[in-house]
C-alpha cells in the first residue's frame, strides 16, 4: 500500500476507536450507576442528554 493509503487506514482506525469508546463507555457508566442504585432496568433515570 502507498503511504497515503496507510495514512487513511491508520486515521480511520483512530476514528473508529473514538466512536466505539465515546458511544460505549458512557452507556456502561450509566448501567453501572443504575445497578448500584438498585435500578435494574434503568427506568428511574430521568436525566436527559444535551
Amino acid at each position, binding site marked *: 500500500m502507498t503511504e497515503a493509503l496507510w495514512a*487513511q487506514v*491508520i486515521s480511520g482506525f483512530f476514528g473508529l476507536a*473514538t466512536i466505539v469508546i465515546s458511544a460505549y463507555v458512557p452507556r456502561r457508566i450509566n448501567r453501572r450507576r443504575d445497578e448500584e442504585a438498585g435500578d435494574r432496568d434503568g*427506568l428511574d433515570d430521568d436525566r436527559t*442528554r444535551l
Partner: protein
Amino acid sequence: MAEFRRARRTPRTLSDLPKNLRPLYQVTSIVWTFYAVGLALTTLGAPLLRFAVPGRIVLTVLALIVAIGMVLRAVVPGRPEWTRWTLPLVAGVSVTTFSLLLFAANFAGGLTTSRVGFAALILTPAAFACVHYLGEKVVAPR
C-alpha cells in the same frame, strides 16, 4: 426490552421537556450543525487533505449526515436524544481528520505553527465528546 422501555420513558418530544431545556436543545443543535458543516467543508476542501481521495469523501459524507441530523433535531420535535449517535460520529470524524492532517503535514514538508493550530481546532468536537464523557461520569451523578 429494557432499552425500549428506557426510550419510552425518556423525553421524546420538545413538549415533553422542561420549558427551560427546550431552547437549549435547539441551540445545541444549531451549534453542532455549524461544527458539522464546517468539518464537512474542511475535509472536502482543505488543500492539505488533497492526498486522501477516498478518505476525505467518506469524512465529508459522515459530517454531512451529522449536520442533517442536527438540523432535524433543531426543527423537528421528537429527536432530543439524537446526540447519542451524532456525538460519537462527529468525534470520530474529528479525530480522523486530525490524524490525517498530521500525516498530511508530514507529507507536505513538516509541521508548522498554522498546521498545528488548524489540526488542534479540528479536534474541538472530540473535546466536546470528552466533556460529555466527564459530564456523565463526574458532573451529573444521580
